[in-house]
């Protein structure tokens, strides 16, 4: 899977070229690749390394250090549930259990139909409206199991 096609390699080369002149560009490059492709395919590593004149190990090391960077294609919708203390005090653990059951997957997994990925996240800065969730970059507060189901239903019809 995920062998890079020529247009993808060209896109990655363009992204690296855009950021190349800036100081300390690697994180910026990886963010841009993930924004364009949805994740950072393994085939991107040697392309980035060669063009930035750093080792593949260095690129791989950075990708794997940060939770935000993905090495496989995520579902059409990314659902992140805050698991930090403030949200725990308002039932985040029960909400997470509900979400796992509703979607039929555990954290860090994607549904078989490729529609949803479920991730834990550690603080969304919405701690006065706990528990919080982030779905495709949209923030939700005071998320009850019922509201969670409604949000999932909303996103089940659209891609």
């Amino acid at each position: 899977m995920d062998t890079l096609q020529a247009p993808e390699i060209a896109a990655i080369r363009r992204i690296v070229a855009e950021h190349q002149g800036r100081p300390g560009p690697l994180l910026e490059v990886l963010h841009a690749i993930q924004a364009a492709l949805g994740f950072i395919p393994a085939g991107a590593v040697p392309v980035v390394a060669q063009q930035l004149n750093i080792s593949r190990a260095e690129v791989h090391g950075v990708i794997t250090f940060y939770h935000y960077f993905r090495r496989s294609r995520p579902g059409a919708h990314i659902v992140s549930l805050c698991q930090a203390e403030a949200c725990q005090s308002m039932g985040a653990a029960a909400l997470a259990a509900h979400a796992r059951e509703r979607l039929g997957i555990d954290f860090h997994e994607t549904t078989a139909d490729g529609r949803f990925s479920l991730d834990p996240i550690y603080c969304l800065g919405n701690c006065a409206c706990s528990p919080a969730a982030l779905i495709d970059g949209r923030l939700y507060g005071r998320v009850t199991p019922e509201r969670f189901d409604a949000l999932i239903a909303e996103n089940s019809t659209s891609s």
Partner: protein
Amino acid sequence: MTTTVYIPGDAGALSIGAGAVAQAITAEAQRRGARIALVRNGSRGAYWLEPLVEVVTSGGRQAYGPVTPAEVPALFAADFLNGGAHPLALGLTESLPWLKGQQRLTFERVGVIDPVSVADYVKHGGYQGLKRALSMAPGDIVQAITASGLRGRGGAAFPTGIKWQTVLEQTAAQKYITCNADEGDSGTFADRMLMEGDPLELIEGMTIAGLAVGATQGYIYLRAEYPHAHAALQAAIAAANAAGYLGADVAGAGKRFDVEVRLGAGAYICGEETSMLESLEGRRGEVRVRPPLPAVKGLFGQPTVVNNVVTLASVPWILAHGAQAYAQFGMGKSRGTLPIQLAGNIRRGGLVERAFGLTLRELLYDYGGGSATGKPIRAVQVGGPLGAYIPAAQFDTALDYEALAGIGAMLGHGGIVVFDDTVDMARMARYAMEFCAIESCGKCTPCRIGSTRGMEVIDRILAGVDGERNVRLLEELCETMVHGSLCGLGGMAPFPVQSALKYFREDFRARVG
């Protein structure tokens, strides 16, 4: 006549429906032919009233909240555009009891102005501090910050003036101002609110810091979890550049200062200053050994100021009103004000900016109104996931750096997470170890491996296996982590565990048998 209506664009307000309310009000106004000018302000920080809608009337800004889209037609019918009576009417915003007693210096414009309008910012006192700074020698700016008593609001509480003085004294071709906006502590959202509600204040603070130490480039290291703050900062930087407050000729004074936002990628450790610098350089966020201090050898090996968002955003007020005016607030060695964040299981959660010295009890009950669930508050965690759990018996402690240190706790970034009496403190202790295991950068063995061993030991206690012996083992492990880690993650992750063992031992003992 056009009526100005404020509906927050703050992420927290949006998370509970402010976007839908804005749409409903716009549509209803159109339907009725009412002329409104909609401003998406920051949040006033009273989150239990969000979405809080404000209407500008001849008598002042009238507040309505919490508004739902379904209530919108009734609000129009009640003539809320002229401050009409309605069950959701709260009176003048500035007279809300929750806001009235606050001492908002750093947050004076948050929720008040259009966040990305330079004109609105200047109209409300913005860029007065920069104007003053431009008439001062660099050393005098640093002196003013030192005299104000400002200490790092990110958590370490290091005197800001001393840090700046060190950078000022260095000779280098390039110096940097870096803003640590990696607000990862649970229970904290002051940085987010400020960046969304008054981003120009942060930019002005960084510009003044640049003038003070001789730096021409600023970086804001922002966490990827804050997309709304990212958009606000980008818009504010563009507006400041367009208005001539950033760039080659800051405010026509012939000095250069540029600001760029760099995104983190979901690593809690990057809120530690040396790890943040590594990340800004495009590397793994592994902690550096100090010395050398970042002030001497920081970003790209150059002298670098590393300050938190609230620290830098406090600078314009200090310059505009004078160091003494700022130092008049506070107690002991904690001068000025602190934006406190009430979070978790609390009835009235949000942001309270007050001088240091308020007690936990005043905050939890007078401002917070007790727990959200109505059950007794059993514990609070102050200062994020590395902060101690504080039992109800200590709620009379004042919020002051030294007073909290005196009871083995820490103030940190001013976040208070509230738990009611259903909390299982042994589980919270396990979570502290789990979080450390997930977020450890891996450099120091006690943190990298000790945190995982800590989870296992607590699991055995929870399973009722050899309880007494495992509790002793856990206490020893905590000691090792505290003394054997380079930075605060491994060095402080045991604090919540130790405090849980100390004050809530019964939660462990239940399993001991």
